[in-house]
C-alpha cells in the first residue's frame, strides 16, 4: 500500500479539519472523504458536516488520545470492543489510548457492506456485525495508518516505503528514528485519493497484535459502577412520561370508557388513543402507571381471538400429512426414491412452543420533536434496521437527516430490539407533547404479553438408510407460522446425505413474531439432531461415530466434532445416572459441536445439566475471551429456553405475564462447567453470538435418549412433560 514519493506529488497541502486540540479523520469506505476532499471551500465543508451532524471513524488529539466510533449496537455481544479493535489493529494504534463511542446512525457512512452488494446497512442482527465490518474496518484502519506514514515521510524527507509502524508510532528502520502518531497530528495532509487497500496489503493474521488477544471489554467498567447509560436512564430536560395499555389479544382496538376520570388523576397530562392501545402521558412514571392500572377499556374482538397455541398442533399434524407442498428450501437428489429403496425408514414429529425474548431491559425510548416540528431527536437502545432512522422520518413526514438517533446501550436485544414498534409508539406520544421529550416505558408485563415471539412449529422428519446403515434420504417438512423465521437452520450442508428435501408449509395466524436468538436454528436443529440420534440408536451406532461418517466430506465440521468429543472425554464410562448427548450445527457461518452431560430426577421429572463442552470454528477470533463469554451465555440461554420457557396462548390471550409465570433459568440450575474451545483459523471471522443457544435443546434431548431410551420431542422439556414421556 505504500506509495513512492513520485506518486505523492498529487497530494495537496490542505490539512484535516481541525477541532479543539486535534483532528477528525474522515477515513473509511464511506464516500465522505471524497466528498470533503473534493470540496475546496472550507466553509462549505463545515456546513456539510454540521448539517449532516457527521463525525468520523476516529478522532485524535495531540496527546495521542483517540476515540474510535463503533457503528454497531452494544447489547452484550461485545461490538463496542471488537469493531474498534479491528480498526486499531490495522492502524497500529496504541490501544491504551483508545476510547470508544457510538457512531452517529447514518447508514451511508457507517453502514456495513455485509448485507449484500451495493448496500450499506446499520443492523446488529444475525451475528453479522463482526463479519460484516471486518474488511471495511481493516481497510479504514490501514488507510489511517497510511496517512501517518505519509506525514512522517514528508517530515523526515524519506521514502515512505522505508517506514513502518509499531503501536502508536511511525519508525524508520534504517536510522532507528521514531515519531509518535500524536506528534504527527498537525502534519497530516489529505491526499486527493486514498490508496485503495487490497486484502493482500492488510496484515497477515499471524502478525496481529490486538486481534486474538485478551482485551478487556471497553463497556465493562461503566457496567459495574452504574454509569452505563441505557435509553431509560437518560434524563432529558422537561421530560414527561408515557405508558400504553395494549390489548390482551393482538389486533384488538380499544375504546376508553373513563377518559374524564383518568384525566383528573394526579399528574396525568394527556390520554392518547392509539389504534392498538391507550396512551397516557403524566408528569411522573408512577403517576402514569397508576393511571394505566385504572383504565376502563372495551376491546374489539379481533381475528386472533379463538387461537389456541396447543390445539393448533393437531391442525399442523394434518397439514404435515395431507397438506399441499409449500415453499421448497432443499430439493437434492430424489428423496422419494431414496425412501422407496431404503431398507428402513424413520419418521418423527418435533414440536416447539412460542418463546419470549425476555431481555432484561423492558422496551423503552425517549423522543423529542422540535417546536417547529422540523426535526426530532430519539434516545434509544436499538439493534438498528434497514432504516437507520427507525421509521421515524416516515411517521413524522420529515427527511431522514432531520432525525437524530442517540444510540444508548441495550439491556439485551436477542432480536426484539430489531423491531421499532416501541420507537414509533413513543414518537406518536411525543407528537402530542411538542416540544417536550416523552420517555415511553413498557412494563415487564407489557413487554411479555405484547411480545413478538419465536414461532411455534411442527416439524416432520423422515429418513431412510441403506443396508449398510448409511443415511440415504432425509426429509424435513415444517408446518408453522412465521415465514422465513422458520427456515433458518433447515439445511444440512455438512452431512453427506445424497437425497434431501426441506420444505415450509406456512400457516399464518395473528401472533406477533420476531427473530429470537438463532431464529429457526433452535427448533430446526433440535429436530434434525434428535432424528440423527434416534437413527444412530436404532442402528446401534455411537452418535459421535455416526456423525463422523456423515461429515467425511466436511473436514471443518469434523474438526469441531472431534475436538468436542475429546474435551468431553466422549465414550469414557459415566457416573451412574448420567448420560451425554451431542449436537452439531452451523449458525452465521460458525460451525459448532456441543456435548452435554445430564442427570434426571425421576420423581420430579427435572433434568439437570452438569457439564457442557463446545468446540467452534468461527474463523479469526477477534476477542477470544468474549467469544467464550458469548458461548457460555448462549448455552445458559439455550438451557433456559429448552427446560423452562413457553408462551401459551388460549383464546388469543397470552397466559403468562411476568417472571413469576414465565420462568427463566436461575443460578441454581447453571451447569457445574461450560468449556469452550475455538479452532485456530485464518479465515475471516464468522458470527458467534447465536452459536451456543441452538446447540442445547438437541444435545439435551440426545443425552436424555441415551439415559432413558426415550425421546423428548416437544420443547420445552418441562418436568411434567418429561414425566409424561417417561410414562409413555
Amino acid at each position, binding site marked *: 500500500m505504500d506509495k513512492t514519493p513520485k506518486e505523492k506529488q498529487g497530494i495537496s497541502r490542505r490539512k484535516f479539519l481541525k477541532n479543539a486540540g486535534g483532528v477528525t479523520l474522515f477515513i473509511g469506505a464511506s464516500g465522505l472523504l471524497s466528498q470533503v476532499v473534493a470540496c475546496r471551500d472550507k466553509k462549505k465543508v463545515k456546513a456539510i458536516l454540521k448539517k449532516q451532524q457527521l463525525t468520523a471513524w476516529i478522532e485524535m488529539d495531540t496527546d495521542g488520545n483517540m476515540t474510535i466510533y463503533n457503528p454497531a449496537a452494544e*447489547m*452484550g*455481544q*461485545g461490538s463496542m470492543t471488537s469493531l474498534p479493535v479491528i480498526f486499531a489493529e490495522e492502524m497500529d494504534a496504541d490501544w491504551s489510548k483508545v476510547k470508544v463511542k457510538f457512531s452517529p446512525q447514518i447508514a451511508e457512512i457507517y453502514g456495513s457492506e455485509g448485507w449484500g452488494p451495493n448496500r450499506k446497512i446499520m443492523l446488529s442482527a444475525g451475528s453479522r456485525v463482526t463479519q460484516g465490518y471486518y474488511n471495511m474496518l481493516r481497510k479504514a484502519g490501514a488507510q489511517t495508518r497510511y496517512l501517518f506514514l505519509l506525514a512522517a515521510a514528508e517530515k523526515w524527507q524519506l521514502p515512505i516505503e522505508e517506514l513502518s509502524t509499531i503501536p502508536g508510532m511511525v519508525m524508520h528502520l534504517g536510522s532507528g528514528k521514531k515519531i509518535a502518531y500524536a506528534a504527527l497530528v498537525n502534519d497530516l495532509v489529505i491526499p486527493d485519493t486514498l490508496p485503495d487497500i487490497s486484502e493482500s496489503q492488510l496484515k497477515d493474521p499471524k502478525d496481529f497484535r490486538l486481534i486474538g488477544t485478551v482485551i*478487556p*471489554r471497553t463497556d*465493562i*467498567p*461503566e*457496567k*459495574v*459502577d*452504574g*454509569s*452505563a*447509560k*441505557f435509553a*431509560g*436512564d437518560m*434524563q432529558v430536560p422537561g421530560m414527561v*412520561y408515557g405508558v400504553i395499555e395494549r390489548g390482551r389479544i393482538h389486533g384488538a382496538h380499544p375504546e376508553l370508557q*373513563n377518559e374524564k376520570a383518568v384525566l*383528573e*388523576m*394526579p399528574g396525568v397530562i394527556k390520554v392518547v388513543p392509539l389504534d392498538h392501545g391507550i396512551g397516557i402521558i403524566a408528569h*411522573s*412514571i*408512577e403517576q402514569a402507571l397508576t393511571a394505566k392500572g*385504572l383504565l376502563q377499556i372495551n376491546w374489539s374482538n379481533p381475528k386472533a381471538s379463538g387461537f389456541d397455541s396447543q390445539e393448533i398442533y393437531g391442525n399442523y399434524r394434518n397439514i404435515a400429512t395431507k397438506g399441499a407442498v409449500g415453499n421448497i428450501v432443499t430439493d437434492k437428489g430424489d428423496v422419494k426414491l431414496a425412501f422407496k429403496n431404503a431398507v428402513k425408514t424413520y419418521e418423527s414429529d418435533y414440536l416447539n412452543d412460542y418463546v419470549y425474548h*425476555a*431481555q*432484561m*431491559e*423492558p422496551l423503552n425510548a425517549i423522543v423529542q420533536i422540535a417546536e417547529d416540528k422540523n426535526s426530532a431527536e430519539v434516545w434509544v437502545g436499538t439493534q438498528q434496521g434497514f432504516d437507520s432512522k427507525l421509521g421515524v422520518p416516515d411517521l413524522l413526514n420529515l427527511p431522514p437527516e432531520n432525525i437524530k438517533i442517540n444510540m444508548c*446501550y*441495550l*439491556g*439485551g*436485544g*436477542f432480536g426484539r430490539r430489531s423491531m421499532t414498534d416501541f420507537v414509533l409508539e413513543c414518537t406518536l406520544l411525543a407528537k402530542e407533547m411538542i416540544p417536550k421529550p416523552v420517555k415511553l416505558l413498557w412494563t*415487564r*408485563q407489557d413487554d411479555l404479553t405484547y411480545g413478538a415471539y419465536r414461532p411455534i412449529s411442527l416439524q416432520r422428519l423422515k429418513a431412510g438408510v441403506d443396508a449398510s446403515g448409511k443415511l440415504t434420504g432425509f426429509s424435513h417438512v415444517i408446518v408453522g407460522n412465521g415465514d422465513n423465521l422458520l427456515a433458518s437452520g433447515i439445511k444440512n450442508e455438512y452431512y453427506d446425505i445424497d437425497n434431501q428435501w426441506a420444505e415450509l408449509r406456512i400457516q399464518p395466524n395473528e401472533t406477533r413474531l420476531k427473530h429470537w436468538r438463532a431464529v429457526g436454528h433452535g427448533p430446526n436443529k433440535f429436530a434434525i439432531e434428535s432424528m440423527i440420534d434416534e437413527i444412530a440408536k436404532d442402528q446401534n451406532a455411537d452418535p459421535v461415530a455416526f456423525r463422523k461418517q456423515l461429515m467425511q466430506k466436511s473436514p471443518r465440521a469434523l474438526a469441531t466434532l472431534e475436538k468436542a468429543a475429546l474435551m468431553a472425554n466422549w465414550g469414557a464410562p459415566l457416573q451412574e445416572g448420567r448420560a451425554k448427548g451431542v449436537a452439531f450445527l452451523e449458525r452465521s457461518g460458525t460451525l459448532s459441536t456441543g456435548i452435554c452431560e445430564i442427570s434426571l430426577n425421576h420423581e420430579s421429572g427435572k433434568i439437570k445439566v452438569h457439564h457442557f463442552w463446545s468446540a467452534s470454528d468461527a474463523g479469526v477470533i477477534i476477542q477470544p*475471551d468474549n467469544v467464550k*463469554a458469548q458461548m*457460555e*451465555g*448462549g448455552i*445458559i*440461554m439455550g438451557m433456559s429456553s429448552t427446560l423452562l420457557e413457553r408462551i401459551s396462548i388460549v383464546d388469543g390471550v397470552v397466559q403468562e405475564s*411476568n*417472571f*413469576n409465570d414465565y420462568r*427463566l*433459568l*436461575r*443460578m*441454581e440450575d*447453571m*451447569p457445574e*462447567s461450560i468449556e469452550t474451545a475455538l479452532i485456530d483459523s485464518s479465515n475471516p471471522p464468522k458470527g458467534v453470538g447465536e452459536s451456543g443457544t441452538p446447540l442445547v435443546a438437541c444435545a439435551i434431548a440426545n443425552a436424555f435418549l441415551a439415559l432413558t431410551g426415550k425421546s423428548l420431542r416437544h420443547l420445552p422439556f418441562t418436568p411434567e412433560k418429561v414425566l409424561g414421556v417417561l410414562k409413555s
Partner: protein
Amino acid sequence: MISKSSFMPIYQLHINAKQYKVDVSEKTPVLWVIREHLGLTGTKYGCGIGQCGSCTIHVDGLAVKACTLPVENVAKGQKIKTIEGLSENADHPLQLSWIEAQVPQCGYCQSGQIMQAATLLAAKSSPTHEEIVSHMNGNICRCGTYMRIVKAIKMASEQMK
C-alpha cells in the same frame, strides 16, 4: 376507584450518605424515586414484582428489591445505598473482580447482581459455593453470566481475606 388527591407528602431520604427530599405519593416504589426523581439510574427496572433483582439496593445493609418497596417505608432515617454509593471510586472488591472476570454482557442486571453479592460478602467473607448460589438465586441474568458471577464473587472473597 379513582380519587383526585393533590396531597403529596415530602419525604426525606438518606441515600449514599446524602440527604434528599422528594415530593411523591406514599406508595411510590423507591425504584422510581431513586431512578426518575433523583437520577440515580444505576438501579434498574426489570420486572416490578421482585422477581428479577435488577433493582437490588441496600437498606440498612440488607439487600432489598426497590421495585416493591414503598417510599414511606424507608423515610425514617434508614440508610439506603445504591450502586453509585457502593464505593468511592468504583473500587469495591466486587466491582474490581467483576472487571477482572469480565462478567457483564448487556450489563443491565449487573448493578443488582453486585449489590446482592455485596451483602453476602459483608456478612460472610468466605462463602461456600452453595451459599453463593443460594444468596444470588433471586437475581436473573438473561445473558447467562452466572458462571462468571460466581467466579467474580470467589475472586473478591479471596481479595477480602
